[in-house]
């Protein structure tokens, strides 16, 4: 029996007259990798921003483990949600440019965890996350000098260093070359396997998503279109019409 880690119920989010999310229900089970796909503007990133406390929803609720973290009445702040155990990355990397890779991740360890931690332990933990994400050789580099691939890995390292139970990954591989994409797929698999972290992954690169996830949810114009296994999604006529364009061959 699968255990629920995140329950999104009837979330609606409007920006003026634009309905970015319309009555969305999604359940994420512990230990799975859930793919979240859909055309540009379908509300994927907005959903992440609602879950992590950046946008308050107009209606509906988000329940993480046993706590309501966002609803129309009550919204926790992003830093509180982080401490509860939800980590996220940003589609456009937001490194702390003037800080080294190590210092970037150190901020996560020092501020993102529930327990306070000594500086020496924090450094060790940060180095562990950096190594996990394959950035050891860059640990002293200023993060502004990293290439796109390494900036995306830094996003992951920072999110992992907060010790999340649930990790929301926003387009980690778009714009990367096939080699780098394969590297990321391995990394994301390892995050689940070795660290036991549940993952929701927003991605446009279907090759990466289809090879990695257990289940896919498709958003279109802010509403949930369908959900199911990658095979079911790839041959679903509604998904093909709205998003994939032609029948996607696995």
């Amino acid at each position, binding site marked *: 029996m699968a255990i629920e880690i995140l329950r999104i119920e009837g979330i609606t989010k409007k920006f003026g007259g634009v309905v970015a999310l319309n009555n969305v229900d999604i359940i994420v089970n512990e230990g799975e990798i859930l793919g979240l796909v859909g055309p540009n503007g379908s509300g994927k990133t907005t959903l992440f921003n609602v879950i*992590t406390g*950046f946008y308050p929803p107009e209606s509906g609720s988000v329940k993480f483990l046993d706590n309501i973290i966002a609803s129309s009445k009550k919204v926790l*702040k*992003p*830093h509180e949600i*982080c*401490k509860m155990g939800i*980590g*996220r990355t*940003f589609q456009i990397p*937001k*490194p*702390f*440019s*003037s*800080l080294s890779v190590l*210092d*970037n991740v*150190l*901020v*996560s360890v*020092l*501020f*993102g*965890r529930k327990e306070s931690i000594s*500086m020496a332990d924090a450094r060790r933990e940060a180095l562990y996350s950096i190594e996990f994400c394959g950035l050891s050789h860059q640990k002293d580099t200023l993060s502004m000098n990293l290439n796109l691939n390494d900036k995306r890995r830094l996003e992951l390292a*920072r*999110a992992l*260093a*907060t010790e999340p139970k649930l990790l929301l990954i926003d387009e980690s591989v778009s714009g990367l070359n096939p080699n780098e994409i394969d590297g990321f797929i391995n990394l994301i698999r390892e995050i689940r396997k070795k660290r036991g972290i549940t993952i929701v992954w927003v991605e446009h690169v279907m090759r990466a998503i289809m090879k990695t996830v257990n289940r896919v949810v498709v958003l279109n114009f802010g509403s949930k279109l369908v959900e199911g296994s990658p095979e079911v999604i790839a041959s679903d006529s509604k998904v093909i019409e709205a998003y994939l364009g032609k029948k996607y061959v696995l």
Partner: protein
Amino acid sequence: MAAQDKRVRANKILRKSTAVSVSVALIAILITLPYILPAYGTALLISIFYAVILAISFNLIAGYAGLFSLGHNLGLGSSVYAFIFLINMGIHVLLSGFIAFFFTVALAAFVGAILIRVRGAFFAILTLAVCQIAMAIANNTYELGRAFGLYLPTTMVWSTQSSYYAMLLLMLVTYYLSYKVVNSRFGLALHAIRESEEAASAIGVDLFKTKLLIFIISSVPINILGILHAFYYGFTIPIVFGLFIALQMQFSAIVGGLGTLLGPIIGSVILTLSSNLLGLYFPGVSWMFYGVVILVVMTLLPQGIWGYVSTRVKK
């Protein structure tokens, strides 16, 4: 690898000991200077210390937290006014000092809690507005002396030498404070907020708490400076809340190098010296020169003098 680590550590120790000996020598020189220099020189140094204290405090909030305050002299003005007002009420000096200090810290907490909810240009404009309100209050309140300001009883005004040492001490303490803040966990959170508020909050940094804390911390040296101002100058007028002082600390920090420890000191020394010494020999022209220095530095070295030097040295 181990050998390299050892070399790096040895280098660090060497650099640290050089830094310590240079600063000890500098402090020794600064302590003896009033015995050597003519009165004007001592007064000039006091105004440099004054500018340095302001610029370091401004740098803490603008350079490290990215909050560009245009009203950072609110603490200066309100502490001078509060202090002299209390003294004139007949309250003991020490008690007046304590009350004035805690009043201004509480004021910073109150104003900060409201203003840090907005960002960027809005924050700058609001800080400016608050200072202008304070100036209007000072200008129009009978008890605060209106445009004439408030005066300390002349017997209480300190000699130039006492003021010199008090200012020197406050400047050193302020520098130490900024060094400690920048190199702490809290300083790391400040850096993170300056670079990206969103990313910082997503990894657990409490934006409101961190910004409010730096707002209050950066006002502390200025609040104390207000009390020293009262002892040194013996009076205050509403212009202490004016935009000019706010801009002066901003220019000093920016010319020297925002977000660096030494930048605000270098900027303050250059700008205060140039405007004062040139004012001595070419009255009226000195402020033009002040403007030219700012223009030249900003065009050629946008990271400021020390910002430029330190990135060069690292390479």
